[in-house]
């Protein structure tokens, strides 16, 4: 087919014009709550993002697609675990889709990269995972709420546990990004024994041969890892494969020992201790409903990520109801969010002055339950009404 010369010549011009029209006129959405869910949906960290998204969407299924009584739309974006891509997706969600709330980011390096444009556009961010120390302390912002924990917390709990257990020589391993640093800082705040080895690996490193060799050479008693999702899966398999599980005990936060890792690793994880603010065996009514509905809807047990996504949706739902749908009134929305009038699946929940949670933390162990499934069993409480260490640095007007 011969394309007329003129059309070919004008093709760039036509393309520009066509795309403007295709983009469509931005109709002003009336009485609808738009939530931008930016999460990691590809790569080894994808399992975490998928869980947060599924937990969040479960609430919408329970309320019939509504948040606070108003119809809600969740626009999902994939940050591909790249701060660059996350930033571009954020611009689109804020400026093109004009969302009312944002949530979903898994990794703290992405959180720190996308925070600035979100706060500048006066959009509330309800974090269902990333809780960097920067946003808890000096850089706290009225538009940032975290409904999960501050990055240090789960590691603080395990540090205290290992200290109390009398574990003498430890090796520490975390990925080299803001949450990894927070993890080690938090751990060392409560563990005062001997840290023989402290290593940070690139966030995309999957082969831990070098680190395992060093641990073997250092002859440590315990290994504490913060390796979420696929990273943890690889490490634990290689740890067992190198025969180190015979000589040293592996500890981790809930991130490295939840359902997603258990599914991939299996039996070799039995007996691993980990800490968390939530367990699926918690007895309160909200949790029972959550776990049952999640299993029915998705055919698997929820992880702590899913519970956080669920609570984030419940929080938004409560806040929108409190302001009776008037989300343009930012002051009122903030007040409603701070009040946190919702039933969290972890039991009692309240925000600190820096808009991070004050809550209890528990020790869990991977074991076989009555049905023979390998899963986490919640043991004792490690911290009660524990606040993060950075609240003093936050000079935000309340």
């Amino acid at each position, binding site marked *: 087919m011969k394309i007329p010369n*003129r059309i070919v*010549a004008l093709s*760039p*011009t036509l393309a520009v014009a066509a795309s*403007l029209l295709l983009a469509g006129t931005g109709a002003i959405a009336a009485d609808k709550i738009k939530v931008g869910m930016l999460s990691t949906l590809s790569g080894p960290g994808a399992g975490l993002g998928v869980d947060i998204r599924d937990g969040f969407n479960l609430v919408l299924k329970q309320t019939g697609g509504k948040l606070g009584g108003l119809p809600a739309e969740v626009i999902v974006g994939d940050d591909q675990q790249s701060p660059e891509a996350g930033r571009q997706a954020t611009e689109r969600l804020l*400026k093109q889709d004009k969302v009312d709330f944002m949530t979903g980011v898994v990794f703290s390096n992405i959180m720190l990269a996308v925070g600035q444009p979100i706060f500048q556009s006066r959009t509330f961010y309800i974090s269902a995972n990333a809780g960097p120390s920067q946003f808890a302390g000096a850089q706290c912002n009225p538009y940032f709420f975290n409904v999960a924990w501050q990055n240090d917390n789960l590691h603080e709990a395990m540090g205290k546990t290992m200290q109390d257990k009398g574990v003498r020589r430890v090796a520490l391993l975390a990925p080299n990004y*803001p949450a990894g640093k927070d993890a080690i800082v938090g751990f060392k705040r409560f563990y005062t024994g001997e840290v023989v080895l402290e290593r940070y690996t*690139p966030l995309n490193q999957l082969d831990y041969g070098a680190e395992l060799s060093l641990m073997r050479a250092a002859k440590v008693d315990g290994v504490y890892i913060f390796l979420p999702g696929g990273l943890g899966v690889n490490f634990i398999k290689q740890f067992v494969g190198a025969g180190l599980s015979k000589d040293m005990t592996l500890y981790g936060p809930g991130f490295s020992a939840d359902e997603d890792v258990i599914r991939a690793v299996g039996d070799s994880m039995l007996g691993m201790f980990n800490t968390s603010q939530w367990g699926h065996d918690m007895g309160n009514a909200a949790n029972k409903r959550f776990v049952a509905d999640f299993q029915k809807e998705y055919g698997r047990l929820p992880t702590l990520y899913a519970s956080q996504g669920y609570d984030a949706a419940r929080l938004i739902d409560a806040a929108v109801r409190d302001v009776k749908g008037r989300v343009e009134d930012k002051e009122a929305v903030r007040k409603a969010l701070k009040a946190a009038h919702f039933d969290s699946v972890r039991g009692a929940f309240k925000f600190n002055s820096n808009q991070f949670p004050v809550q209890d933390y528990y020790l869990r162990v991977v074991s076989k339950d009555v049905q023979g499934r390998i899963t986490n069993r919640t043991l004792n409480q490690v911290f009660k009404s524990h606040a993060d260490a950075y609240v003093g640095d936050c000079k935000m007007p309340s």
Partner: protein
Amino acid sequence: MTRIASGAHLVARPIEAERAAERVGGLLDHSLLSRASLPLLVLLAALPAVAGAFNETFYVGVASRILIFALAATSLNLILGFGGMVSFGHAAFVGIGAYAVGILMNAGVATAWIAWPVAMLASALFALLIGAVSLRTKGVYFIMITLAFAQMLYYLMVSLKAYGGEDGLSLSARSSLGLGLDLGSEATFYYVVLLLVMATIVVVQRLLNARFGHALQAIRENEARMAAIGFPVYRHKLIAFTVAGAMAGLAGALLANQSGFVSPALLQWSQSGMLMIMVILGGVGQLYGGVAGAVVFLLLEEVLAARTIHWQFGLGAALLAVVLLAPNGLMGLRRKRGAQ
């Protein structure tokens, strides 16, 4: 008005070329005005007003981004299309320009009048150093060496935690231009970018139509012959490489402003690959090749990415089709017809 091509004595001139020369000035000359350029310019100038009327100012930002990549692709086209140097490390120069602006901003220097020239100088300097070494090689080794240098720079920026490392560097605001212009306004920024892109194209055109540009294109056609008649081939290529690096640096500076964020991802080899795709899509060796390629590529991304996450399949298919069926790109299709 006919102009005698000054490079005429360097190339053979069959009859058809003679006639073509009478129209434009010479086989090696390029015209600023093509059938597309004026309507396109009008459309581009009117874009912010149109977008504002539809209340879609987001698209002004998108258009700025497209123009910035058009600038980067044009700079690559200078050495790739007109000079025949297949550099797989061009994105590194864009990245250096971007980081220059980012680092200066974080150090307190926010004025564009210092930051942007520094960006161009930094990129030019790296281009000079890398070119000096790489241009001594040929063929696939040139490709690999430029790739290697770009990767080294990428890993260097990853290792420098002081400038954010892998997690990148946020800019607190856009560069300040003074003159009562606020680059924070999307429309103002857009016009500044448009002006700079237009200026660059004029510079490239003047360069190509001058003796230097004719020699460069002749080197692309037959390097051995040029060397044999005593032309300083290496020097010409190095100058072109450096100039292209400086232009890429400017594109980088503008990119840092547009996205407010710099990260090592800008320097990766896959980014260089994307720039090369733009050049070949638009037309290797055509004056507006870089612009056309960037526009088509990024619009495809913008329109398709909203519809499906698998848009890169369509991009790959389009690219493959162009490589197999239209080796001279979209602008080349037009030129080929014109010559008939």
